[in-house]
Each structure stands twice: as structure tokens, then as C-alpha cells.
């Protein structure tokens, strides 16, 4: 359904994103994972046509048989509402604080569908029920500040799916929420995507969240897709050094007796930090933070290889079967 080829996003002299291939099949859920500054958000934004004004996009993003790169803004805006839904990160900022929730959803319907007034009202109620807001009618009249963060995110999901898009793009949709609320939202996204056969591009810096939602995961560093495979594969058998470092650094709650064993133990860290735009080294972009880097990593960018079912860009991958 969505097919990205040789996507390049440039800001000034810097190539922020360089992705050779990324596909999302109809109804498939694909996650993009990486730290802040890795390029995952701008990749997602570029697909939705929401990249910053100074960004220049080249290459190809095909949605069905239409090319999104170079499409007129008015046409892109229409597609964005009607066929590609977007769930933003911070619900408090994404909703208009001065407008009742019902009107905001109705607005999304008026802009992106041909429904008449009566139908818009009925559909608004239906959407509120679909995103599991109990007593939907009472939500119509509320203002954003009168509902919780989790409920606000449900309203935004209702707006994103209002016109029945076939692809949803979610950019860190749960980072502002508590864990139990987060999981309810994740569950809702999974249910809606399954029920309506909606594809999903899910962006997050939390690998655990992404793997719980997505069929496949792409790991991004320095704007490059460094590893791509099934969720299970990426999490249980990471091959790229960056993926395995991300897994190591994730705070995990040990279970049962392991809890006592891990108490007071330091977390493993990824040394250094993501460099600012234009600050990545030549060759492998991760090499200055990688314990396995060699001469080769400094001289040539790693080429893509097939590592037992997943795609990998690393000159010195973690040995297969070696747990992270």
C-alpha cells in the first residue's frame, strides 16, 4: 500500500533522512524506533507531508499508485485527511482549547468527507463510541480541558480515523500518558487497525511499546534504516549494534527472583549521544558510539545485507544467536 524508495530528506546541506526502501502492506503495522534526533519522526512527518518547511524531499513515496513526493499541497492535504490519518504526540497541544470536542471531530468530518450535517452528527457520535468514550453524547459538549489526557488522545484518534483512512501515522502517541492509560490507547489503536484493515506507521523511542503494537520494526539511526525485521526477530535476535544497545538500555522490570538479583545494578548505556544535524561521522553513522567499530566502518557506509529474514546495515553485526 505504502512504498518508499530512495527517500531523501535534506535540510540545507544536510541529508537528514536517507531510506532506500520501506514498505507498509495493507493492514500491516510497522514501527520506527530510535532516539530523539535519529530521524524517525521526520520520516513519518514526510510521509504525511507535514515535514518542516525548509526540508526538501526527493525520491519516491507511493501510496497505492499515487506518488506523494512532488504532489500539490492542496491535493496532499486532502489525502492526509481522507486517506492518511495522523495521530500527534501531545494531545493537549493538538486540540483547540476553545472549541468543544464534538465540534472538532465534526470539523474533521466536514473537511475530509462529503457527509451532510445530519450525517456528520451521527458519525461523530459513532466515532466517539468507536474510540470507547463511554456516554459519547456527553463528550460532544465538553472542552479539551474537561477531559483527561487519555480521553484527549481518544478524541484525536477519532479525528484521525474520521474519514476512514487506510493508513494511520502515529508519532509517539502515548509518551505523555501513564502506563495503564498508554496500554489502553495502544490496545485501541491495534483494535481499530485490525477491525478496519488500516495500515499503521508507529513512531516511538520505546522499543517495548513498538513491539507490542507492530508486526514489523525498523530501527533508525542517523536517518538510516539500520535494521528491519519482524517484531519478534528484532527484539529477541537483534543483529545491529545499535538495536542491541537500545534493548540493553531500556529499563525493564525483572520478574520474580530476578528482581533481587538486579537491584542496585547499573543500566547498560549507549555511550555518547545522538549528534546534532550534520554532526554524524562519515562511514557508518553509529560508529563513534559503537564498541565494535573498525577501519572499515570509518571508510565505507555499511551496505544492506539479508540476515536470516531481516535487513541489516552493519559491518560487524552481533553474532546470530547471541542474545543482546
Amino acid at each position, binding site marked *: 500500500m505504502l512504498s518508499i524508495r530512495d527517500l531523501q530528506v535534506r535540510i540545507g546541506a544536510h541529508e537528514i533522512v536517507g531510506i532506500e526502501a520501506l514498505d507498509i502492506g495493507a493492514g500491516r503495522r510497522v514501527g520506527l524506533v530510535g*532516539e*530523539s534526533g535519529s530521524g524517525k519522526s521526520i520520516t513519518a512527518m514526510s510521509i504525511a507531508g507535514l515535514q518542516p518547511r525548509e526540508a526538501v524531499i526527493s525520491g519516491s513515496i507511493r501510496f497505492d499508485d499515487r506518488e506523494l513526493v512532488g504532489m500539490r499541497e492542496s491535493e496532499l492535504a486532502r489525502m492526509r485527511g481522507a486517506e492518511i490519518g495522523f495521530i500527534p504526540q501531545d494531545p493537549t497541544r493538538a486540540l483547540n482549547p476553545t472549541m468543544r470536542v464534538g465540534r472538532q471531530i465534526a470539523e474533521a468530518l466536514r473537511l475530509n468527507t462529503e457527509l451532510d450535517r445530519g450525517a456528520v452528527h451521527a458519525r461523530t457520535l459513532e466515532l466517539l463510541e468507536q474510540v470507547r468514550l463511554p456516554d459519547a453524547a456527553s463528550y460532544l459538549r465538553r472542552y479539551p480541558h474537561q477531559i483527561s*489526557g487519555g480521553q484527549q488522545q481518544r478524541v484525536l484518534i477519532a479525528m484521525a480515523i474520521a474519514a476512514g483512512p487506510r493508513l494511520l501515522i502515529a508519532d509517539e502517541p502515548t509518551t505523555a500518558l*501513564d*502506563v*495503564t*492509560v*498508554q*496500554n489502553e490507547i*495502544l*490496545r485501541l489503536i*491495534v*483494535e481499530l487497525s*485490525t477491525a478496519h484493515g488500516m495500515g499503521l506507521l508507529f513512531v516511538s*523511542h*520505546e*522499543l*517495548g*511499546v513498538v*513491539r*507490542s*503494537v507492530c508486526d514489523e520494526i525498523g530501527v533508525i539511526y542517523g536517518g538510516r534504516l539500520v535494521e528491519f525485521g*519482524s*517484531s*519478534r*526477530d528484532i*527484539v*529477541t535476535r537483534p543483529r545491529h549494534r545499535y538495536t542491541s*544497545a*537500545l*534493548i540493553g*538500555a*531500556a*529499563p*525493564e*522490570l*525483572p*520478574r*520474580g*527472583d530476578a*528482581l*533481587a538479583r*538486579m*537491584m*542496585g*545494578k*547499573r*543500566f*547498560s*548505556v*549507549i555511550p555518547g*549521544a545522538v549528534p546534532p544535524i550534520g554532526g554524524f561521522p562519515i562511514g557508518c553513522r553509529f560508529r563513534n558510539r559503537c564498541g565494535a567499530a573498525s577501519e572499515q566502518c570509518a571508510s565505507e557506509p555499511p551496505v544492506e545485507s539479508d540476515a536470516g529474514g531481516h535487513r541489516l546495515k552493519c559491518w560487524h553485526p552481533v553474532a546470530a544467536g547471541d542474545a543482546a
Partner: protein
Amino acid sequence: MTPLVEARGIRFRYPSGRRRGDASWTIDDVDLTLDRAATLGIVGESGSGKSTLIRILCGLIAANEGEVRFDGRGIGDWLARDRLGFRARNQIVFQNPRRSLDPRMTVATSLGEPIRALERRRPITSELAAGLERVGLSPALLDRYPHQLSGGQLQRVAIARALTVKPSVLYADEPTSALDVSVQAQVLNLLMDLRDELGLTLVLVTHNLAVVGRLAERVLVLRRGVVVDAGATVDVLARPGNAYTEALVQAAAEVSLADGGKPISAGA
């Protein structure tokens, strides 16, 4: 030895709540004991009262009922007789360093604030430089402004600032939730190192059970202002004593990496 901090029967509600006719307590009959050089994790979701609770323990807001004792004396007594000394010994680090550091001040000015306010003296550049080095930052950052630093660097500055006045207790209110996973790990390791090195008593407020599971040997689970579970972390989290703690542990497991590729269960 008497505990460093002891709270008995703490009750608190915000005046605005009472005006709206909301009679419920934000903090409702909380007991708490904190030993010297121990680390206590306070977990709970938004609105559970965990941030309010530590503000009461630090004397930033006063409980309506109950008593807080610090180092053998009541908090009211401390605030009346040695307010500055009490503040110096009880320092807080907040969640979002971009909001807790003044954007118009250099790192040096921000770092020196507690010394100026609580010790009533001018900070010496060398002590500020040493403070930065202790948290793994270069003294060259002293002349920088917050917008020139990354989130992780800013949180280190906030920690360094709290430590300039040699606190006995460091309260950390969600210190890593505004940070990236990899930076979180670095900041948490730093807190562990500083605690061990300085013999700090640490109170860690977080919604992240994994963080408590590594750092805090004791934990207190707060729900709507009430302590629903408390004790040794290895007991409370491995064998939750009530349904709420269990739900939190379960929620963490659903997005855990240990489960491999198991998708989040639908319809629960």
C-alpha cells in the same frame, strides 16, 4: 537510630478542591519512614498524589493533618528556626529540566542559586566547576545557556545544582521521564553513583516500575492519595499485595521486551 524522615497520618487537600466542593483528600492518611542512605521509590499514576507527597516532605506545602519529622524534629519547628538549613538538606530535582532552569541564566548562575539563597554567600567558580564534573559534565558548560544543552545535560545540571548545598535527602520527581531511553539509563546510573558516593538518601518519584526495581530497595505505591502497598521492592513488585499494584506490574509487562514479539492483548 531514628529514621531521617518520618511521616504519620499525613492528610492534605488543595484549597481549590475544597472550594469546588470536592471533599476528597489529595493525600489521605499517609505514613512513611525513610532511613538514612536508603532509597525509597514512590510509584503511582498521574493524580495519585506522589508529587504532592514529596512537596509536603520537603516543606514546600504544609499538610492539613498529621506530622512530618526530619532528623528528629518536626517540620514546623525546622521551618520556624532554621528554614534555610532545612531547605538545603532537602533538595528536589524536577521532571523537566527545560522548565526548571531559567532560560535567561547561564549554567553558572543557575548552579549558584541554591548557594546564594540558602547559604547566603557568593558561589566560588571552582566549586561550581567541581559540581559539574561530579555529574559528568565539562566545566566549559558554565558559560552556556540552557538552550545550548541537551535534555540529558540539563538534567545533570539540575542534579548538580541540588547537590551544591550538600543535601541529606535528594527528592527526584520523575527525573528521567522527559528523556530518551538511552539518556534515561545514563541519568539513572548517575543517580545511583552519586547516592553511593555521597551517602545520599534518595526518594525517587516515578511511574516507571522498572526504575524502582533497579534503584529503590523500598517502595510505596500510591493511589488517589492512599498508600495501597508498601515494603521491600523485591516483595511488593514480585508478589503484589493488591490488585492495583498488580495492574501496574501487568501494564509494565505488556510493553516489556522480555516477551519478545507478543502483541498487546486485545479486549482486556
